[in-house]
């Protein structure tokens, strides 16, 4: 079993768990969104396999629904960042000149800055002042995805640019140009497929980064707002209950750990395969 397989298996397992949340709810017969004050900080039992949180909601079910949110945000942000980053990296490599210079200086600037304080500032913005509806779960997720993309595209763009630069200098590209292939088709058919491996590596790392950053923002209370569960805001609740229910802090963190490790293994595996 290679790293790639191990990583993919881990991620698949987590995705399956996220998809299975409604069935688990039907099977356990408890509502993870309804408070049950008699079950506050309940320990593990047949009704609550992992126990219950400060409002008596089932931890296992919230963990599964949280997986939907955390993995969904992570994947969406990484996908958007990868598309944007690949396009910009390709553009920089193909166009060269001042476009390349501006884009890469921008990337350098973003890389040199500490991302989190800026994200905190951005996350505290009021979407209502931009004319967006406030406080709905879907807009909440979109907002976080947009914020994550601001820093997420940089890594992808740098790898895509480096790959495209070396591809654009090869003989087969020159041959294609000599045959009169249009530039758009050249980039789409002859350069883009060659970028699959570096972009896949960057994308896997971007998923890991997005899941981690989302959890940090939600932990600080700036990400996914309760009552929607996410692994980050579950940890924020758990930190306030270190005396009553220390175990509640274990599971969401473990879930983040597995997701990030899975992504890192996939990235590592793809990178090794390319060598």
């Amino acid at each position: 079993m290679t790293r790639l397989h191990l990583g993919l298996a881990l991620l698949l397992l987590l995705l399956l768990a996220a998809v299975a949340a409604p069935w688990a709810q039907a099977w356990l017969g408890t509502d993870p969104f309804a408070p049950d004050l008699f079950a506050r900080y309940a320990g593990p039992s047949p009704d609550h396999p992992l126990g219950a949180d400060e409002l008596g909601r089932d931890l296992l079910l919230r963990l599964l629904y949280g997986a939907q949110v955390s993995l969904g945000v992570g994947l969406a942000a990484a996908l958007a960042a990868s598309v944007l980053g690949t396009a910009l990296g390709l553009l920089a490599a193909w166009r060269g000149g001042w476009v390349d210079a501006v884009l890469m200086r921008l990337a350098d600037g973003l890389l040199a800055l500490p991302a989190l304080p800026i994200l905190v500032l951005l996350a505290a913005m009021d979407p209502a002042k931009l004319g967006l509806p406030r406080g709905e779960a879907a807009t909440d997720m979109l907002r976080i995805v947009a914020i994550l993309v601001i820093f997420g595209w940089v890594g992808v763009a740098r790898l895509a640019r480096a790959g495209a630069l070396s591809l654009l200098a090869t003989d087969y590209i020159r041959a294609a140009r000599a045959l009169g292939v249009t530039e758009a088709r050249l980039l789409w058919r002859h350069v883009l497929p060659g970028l699959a491996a570096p972009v896949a590596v960057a994308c896997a790392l971007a998923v890991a980064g997005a899941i981690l950053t989302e959890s940090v923002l939600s932990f600080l209370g700036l990400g996914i707002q309760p009552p929607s569960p996410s692994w980050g805001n579950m940890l924020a609740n758990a930190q306030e209950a270190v005396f009553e229910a220390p175990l509640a802090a274990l599971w969401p963190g473990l879930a983040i750990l597995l997701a990030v490790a899975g992504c890192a293994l996939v990235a590592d595996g793809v990178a090794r395969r390319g060598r």
Partner: protein
Amino acid sequence: MAGALNLLLWRMPQMAITLVLLSLAAWFSIGLMPGDPVSLAMISDPRLTPADIERLRALHGLDQSLIARYLAWAGGVLRGEFGYSRLFAQPVWRVLWPALLSTLALVGTAVLLAAGLGIALGALAALRPRAAPVVDGLALLAQAVPSFWLGILLIILFAVRLGWLPAGGAPDAGHSALPFLVLPVATIAFGQMAGYARHAAAALSAELSRPHITSARARGAGERRLLWHHALPNAAVPLLTLLALDAGALVSGALVTETVFARPGMGKLLYDAVMGNDYNLALLALLLVALVTMLATLLADLAQRWIDPRIGER
């Protein structure tokens, strides 16, 4: 040394432009945050009439456009007038300075520990191939653990269960700061260690198979001397690159860790300032953090050129 001067001449304007752009972006996103100081005054004093509110808005310059306010603010900062913090009712620099020192102490200790442990683990992996998978696994674990979760687990174990160390906060005057530093430093250092271990292992094992090592071994140099005197100085270059590239992530990590441990520092200050509508403090704290991060990157780059003068000559 011409290379270093060149680097400085290149970097300085770049840093200045980054700071200006960042302050502009931050200014406008603050403009989009809910509420302003006058709306807070309105909540706390119901007797305010609309005329009073108009007057207050004019007094604070809130009736002018965002850009006009930005220019006025930036002009003040350039003249060295940093203004006051609304939250602490003190000059901003008097709030920022101790917070910066506290964060630097935290980050500095953590980086030293992480680099030391990471290099030791990397050397172990490079010298003993059988230990390599273990080091690899440990590095993967350290990379994937969310630092704030590790912080919570450490609090539960060492502060709640065992009661050996304080769960967070700051020491009272006259008490040692050391116990308060242990858990936050461990939290940051564990995550940072991964990169150093991985890069040290790769660089050292590449270095150890090069001809100058074989030649030194043939002349009878001991394995320990080979590692520390012949391989490590060359392997230090990628490690410094890592430090330069990671400065931003390191500072971000320190900010979260400070929040977990309720430790006074730039992270908590920035968070409180953003949450408490303290525009001026939030903005200057953000710029200060960015400046310090970029200076750290610059320092790492300079150190790299000092260790390997070939870098500047390309």
